[in-house]
């Protein structure tokens, strides 16, 4: 009997799927349905039926555009979206086991608000929240806030993002787990010795704390970051529990892992677990030729061949399972898959890929834990402010 690594699996939900022409597919949701709660609920339930670790929900402040500067004037692509954290909250009470990881930008938002948003999502989902932290670097999004000049140095945005996550993490810990005591004898609702000022100070902002929201069920909901290069590797190594990377060959995995591990050393976080997920855009059909033809048909409808930062896979679920096994062997802990079209490719992940991985002994047959951290194999972290008294 050979040892098989267990693969973690997530899907990235976005629009009608990741191909820009996905909304034109006959089985796609009608355009206005992209703004309905039921559409997102259906997708998350489908992903949950496939026992996936989590879904991510894309987001961003600017109206979608192919032009970095703002309007691209295109009328043939999906435009308009909903706030991802609120979609995740809307779905939370109606799902039970799958992790919910909305994208929330670090660039224009307040750490105090983001901290309580994700903490509250963790309460509403009883321990299934995560946060995909992302910088907002498009020139078009800065005038929406008018607080600073467009197109600042990306290094600055990543540094700010790291500070943002640090402030959020401290706020999550600013209440010890047992801070609410409801002690009738002394009339005290909380033990204020177990509430902590975080006094976070950085070049970008100061935050005093404590949070208004008690420590969330997971203690620290997992932070997820997508990273492509040195700056974002450094951010992910400093800030994330799960990093999403985009090697285009299995051979490219090892150098990325080396970069991430040395970035972790630099950040002083070598002891922290950092799960590394590979990214794929997927077009899946039992007949691999059909998947390739479908992708070509979508490209034709869109007028250009679809390209992505992530490798694009078009083929059968079985072939994808073999490929994921190979890449996992190269050192990846799991994968976030971006379905080319919804519902078809999401269904194929759940009904084709998942059974194929299960047959290979690479994927769970049932959820093993109640929380997202639990399913990712991450323990619930101790509170950074607690040990002084616990000792």
């Amino acid at each position: 009997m050979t040892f098989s690594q267990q693969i973690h699996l997530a899907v990235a939900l976005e629009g009608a799927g990741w191909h820009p022409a996905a909304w034109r597919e006959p089985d796609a949701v009608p355009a206005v349905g992209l703004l309905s709660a039921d559409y997102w609920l259906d997708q998350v339930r489908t992903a949950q039926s496939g026992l996936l670790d989590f879904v991510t929900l894309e987001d961003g402040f600017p109206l979608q555009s192919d032009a970095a500067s703002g309007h691209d004037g295109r009328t043939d692509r999906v435009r308009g979206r909903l706030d991802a954290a609120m979609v995740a909250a809307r779905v939370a009470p109606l799902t039970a086991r799958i992790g919910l990881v909305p994208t929330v930008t670090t660039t224009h938002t307040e750490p105090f608000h983001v901290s309580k948003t994700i903490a509250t999502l963790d309460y509403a989902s009883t321990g299934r929240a995560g946060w995909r932290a992302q910088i907002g670097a498009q020139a078009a999004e800065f005038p929406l806030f008018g607080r600073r000049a467009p197109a600042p140095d990306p290094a600055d945005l990543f540094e700010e993002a790291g500070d943002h996550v640090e402030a959020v993490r401290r706020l999550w810990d600013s209440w010890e787990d047992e801070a609410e005591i409801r002690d009738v004898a002394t009339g005290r609702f909380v033990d204020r010795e177990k509430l902590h000022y975080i006094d976070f100070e950085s070049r970008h902002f100061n935050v005093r704390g404590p949070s208004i929201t008690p420590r969330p069920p997971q203690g620290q909901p997992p932070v997820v970051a997508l990273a492509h290069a040195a700056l974002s590797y450094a951010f992910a190594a400093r800030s994330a529990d799960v990093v999403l990377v985009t090697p285009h060959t299995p051979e490219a995995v090892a150098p990325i892992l080396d970069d991430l591990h040395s970035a972790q050393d630099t950040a002083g976080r070598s002891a922290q677990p950092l799960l590394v997920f590979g990214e794929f855009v997927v077009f899946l059909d039992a007949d691999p030729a059909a998947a390739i033809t479908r992708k070509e048909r979508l490209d034709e409808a869109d007028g250009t061949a679809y390209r992505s930062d992530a490798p694009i896979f078009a083929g059968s679920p079985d072939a994808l399972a073999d490929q994921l096994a190979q890449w996992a062997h190269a050192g990846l802990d799991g994968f976030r898959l971006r379905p080319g079209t919804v519902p078809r490719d999401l269904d194929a992940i759940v009904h084709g890929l998942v059974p194929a991985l299960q047959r290979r002994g690479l994927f769970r047959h049932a959820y093993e834990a109640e929380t997202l951290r639990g399913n990712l194999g991450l323990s619930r972290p101790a509170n950074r402010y607690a040990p002084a008294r616990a000792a």
Partner: protein
Amino acid sequence: MTSSGGTPLKQIHLAAHFPGVNNTTVWSDPRSGSHIEFESFRAFAQTAEAALFDFLFLAEGLRLREQNGLIYDLDVVGRPDTFTVLAALAAVTSRLGLAGTVNSTFNEPYEVARQFATLDHLSDGRAAWNVVTSWDAFTGENFRRGGYLPQEERYARARAFLHVARTLFDSWDGTEIAGDRQSGEFLAEPRPGRFRVRDAFFDIEGSFNVPRSPQGRPVIFQAGDSEEGREFAAAEADAIFSRHGTADAGRAFYADVKGRMVKYGRDPDQLKVLPAATFVLGDTDAEARELADVVRHQQVSGQTAIRMLEQLWNRDLSEYDPDGPLPRIDPDLGEHTVARGRASVRMHRDPMATAREWRELAEAKGYSIRELMIQVTGRQTFIGSPLTVAEAIDDLVQSDAADGFILVPHITPGGLGEFAEKVVPLLQEKGVFRTEYTGTTLREHLGLRPLPAFDEGAAA
């Protein structure tokens, strides 16, 4: 439905406030549940919806309160994020309006407009926004923006903030999404959501990225009581969260704000006046009065009474005996330093005069500090048998002291159940409260006319 005089009876609007951080909540009661777990919110919302309430309301707090330099620990402390809870509640309710206070100081209009437009989509048209301004640098310490605003700028900023938000809500008119798969035309219009605002507070432009929501925009609430607040409400709001729940004060306030609407070309019927209210029910009025007294003593412990007195006196009074007389020393009229993060300290506009009144009352009645605080702070609005309470509510509404009430039970989350079970049916029998939801949106529940698809007046 008409009264005996032939005048149509006004329909009462009812809302339920899930209590946040206050001394109203008797958390020591064994029936008192979590203020954080989602199950409490679900239970509370579902009770309100089963009773056909107009909406559920959540207040806001962005810094833990402090007194004498320490985190205030006698009341419920801690609350979840408003938007996140309301979005989750949209999943477990289908008609109930979902209202939240979100301040305009520690947020940016683009982000807030996006969140409310999203909530309106996710709830199929049930979102409402209570627009408030914060002013204190104390709360600002939690935010990168800081936060101090001079008093005179607070409403100017709130109005500018709301104006920007409305511009954003109206930046899509609802006709932009064609979704034609054959022709490949997703948008019927190449540049939807365009906006540009330049005023004293904001200088922003771009394209809003949430298409028009079912109600067009959330229902707008206003809660301030100052001259500027009343003017703001008359000009801009759909409803007022008022403090004036008694007959005389209520009628005066009601007439005042509705009277101000004419100059804005608004129909007074399109602004609902909804005072906050608490209640204690008993089988008989006498039993309710007894129970109300017990609840007041639970709400105002000796420690709490001293803390309340400090909030007026602006001094550390921890050495005083709550069962003894009021301090001989006068309030400190300097900068308020004792209680921080608490709006109520600002209600004491003339601490010396209030102290004088309290002393006179205490002397006349022989009240201790605690007994005085029980009398002068937050006595329940409605006390009595279900019939007495139903009649009191109906009388206040029919006599134009209010259009309805926002009820805060003192037990969370179960305290609303008794009102729903016992008082609501009596109001229904009187023909003054709905027996089923007739609309799907909060605007419809409140009797507010639908917005035109595109509000020329609000567009930039």
